[in-house]
């Protein structure tokens, strides 16, 4: 079967944060921004619709959400309609699936939306719902949510590689600085290492500012087959490669702690498909759900040697002027992390970066971009590699 080339032709996001808006309001806002990004695009062009969302049954007591979102955006699907759920990596997974559907010829134009309304009037209710992400019968019974999970990952990385609390904090400082320049970001104020230390201790060694926040938000993109791209935009970004690997859900069966071998597999496959190496990547949006995550991702994505992630941030190699600019949009830590929308927002950031529309957070001459989205106990990893030109 012939594999067709596929590009992202439109994209827009809602403002991320603690929003005075419903789930549907957020989807409408992101959809409007997406349509406005490509004036030639109308709802009638869209044949397929995927909604990336994690727990609307919990947060807003709503299921059958893909038709609800399509209807909200004026889309009447003729080739595909479904919801995609892979916890925090739902967004990139939906993009990967839409890519495969278009590349194989089953549809020409697919909208991929992501949305999560996480704030509830009682903050304790939101935290309770996040327990559903863990293995309910064997892990969540102990109260295990994301912060203690990644705190234990950090403890192992610090023990095995000598990673320091300051190196962790530097990730947050960089991403808050970047997010300050991103209009949709939840946090738009730079912070210092001292402020990270002074923020509330959440789960040793992670302070509040080592953690991404609870976020409401939505993001929408449109993918098209090569022969339709020019109908919508002169500024597409092309999918060069994608990779995905999983490792399970129960904490006891996690295939690595300080090591994330499944990320290595996903990255290897994506690099191979794109025909590029880690040193070719100009700009990356990676899954900094916690500061320790970004440090391990430098290593497993091949930006530096195993164990040297702490040094990589310390030496400014993931910052502007360094080897690869990581999380110019502020990452999850600053932009926020509305579960289902995050992977879509990463793609939108890359579309802006590769076409010089990222304002004062622009990475100069960026041509090749990578996004990384993870879920669970850092077991599932999804990578997308985008280029400014077709390949």
């Amino acid at each position: 079967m012939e594999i067709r080339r596929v590009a992202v032709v439109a994209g827009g996001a809602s403002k991320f944060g603690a929003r005075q808006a419903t789930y549907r309001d957020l989807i409408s806002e992101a959809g409007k921004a997406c349509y406005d990004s490509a004036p030639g695009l109308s709802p009638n062009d869209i044949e397929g619709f995927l909604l990336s969302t994690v727990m609307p049954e919990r947060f807003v007591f709503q299921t059958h959400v893909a038709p609800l979102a399509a209807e909200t955006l004026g889309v009447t699907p003729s080739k595909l309609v479904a919801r995609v759920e892979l916890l925090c990596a739902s967004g990139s997974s939906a993009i990967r699936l839409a890519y495969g559907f278009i590349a194989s010829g089953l549809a020409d134009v697919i909208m991929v939306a992501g949305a999560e309304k996480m704030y509830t009037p009682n903050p304790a209710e939101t935290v309770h719902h996040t327990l559903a992400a863990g293995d309910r019968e064997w892990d969540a019974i102990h109260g295990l949510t994301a912060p203690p999970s990644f705190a234990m990952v950090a403890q192992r990385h610090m023990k095995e590689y000598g990673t320091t609390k300051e190196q962790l904090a530097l990730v947050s400082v960089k991403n808050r600085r970047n997010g300050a320049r991103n209009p949709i970001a939840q946090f738009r104020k730079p912070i210092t290492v001292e402020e990270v230390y002074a923020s509330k201790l959440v789960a040793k060694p992670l302070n509040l500012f080592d953690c991404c926040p609870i976020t409401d938000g939505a993001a929408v993109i449109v993918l098209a087959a090569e022969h339709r791209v020019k109908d919508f935009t002169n500024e597409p970004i092309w999918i060069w490669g994608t990779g995905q690997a999983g490792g399970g859900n129960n904490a006891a069966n996690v295939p690595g702690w300080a090591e994330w071998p499944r990320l290595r597999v996903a990255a290897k496959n994506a690099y191979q498909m794109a025909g590029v190496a880690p040193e070719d990547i100009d700009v990356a949006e990676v899954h900094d759900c916690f500061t320790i995550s970004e440090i391990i991702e430098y290593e497993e994505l091949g930006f530096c040697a195993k164990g040297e992630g702490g040094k990589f941030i310390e030496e400014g190699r993931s910052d502007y002027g360094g080897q690869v600019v990581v999380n110019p949009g502020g990452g999850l830590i600053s932009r926020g992390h509305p579960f289902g929308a995050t992977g879509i927002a990463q793609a939108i950031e890359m579309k802006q970066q590769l076409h010089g529309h990222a304002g004062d957070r622009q990475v100069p001459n960026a041509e090749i971009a990578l996004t990384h989205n993870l879920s669970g106990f850092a077991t599932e990893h999804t990578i997308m590699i985008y280029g400014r030109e077709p390949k």
Partner: protein
Amino acid sequence: MSERMSEQPYINTMDVYPLEAAEQNKLYKFYDSLREGRLTTTKCTSCGHIPWPPRTLCPNCTSDEFEWIDLPRKARIYSCTVQTAGVPPVFEIPLYMAMVEFDNGLRMLTRLVETTEDDLEIGREVELAVLEVPGPMSRVVHAFKPVRGN
């Protein structure tokens, strides 16, 4: 709201703990043994694979026949933390948690009880503790506690 609604019947999706009884759960023997102070898991009778958590389908040989075996009462901390903010509503801070490792190499996520920050050390020896689950049903949950000096 009707009288009946306001009585707040049991809502399973707000319950952190699984249903443990034989009428509800094929792994009910795990909980029965735990009530007697024994920590157990399944062993595949076809290939001998010992998983954690216990399971009704062997991921190694796909057999669905298993027997119950006892796990050691003691383990060592592989990684640990104490959560001091943002714990789910039915839990209290400080919430001590660890991944523990048994001599046979099996690992298990568990909460730590009767613990202080001084006990949070990779390699620290811990032993089984059995807790009652508060609420209307008679249920138990496993935990570990630091082994104190001789």
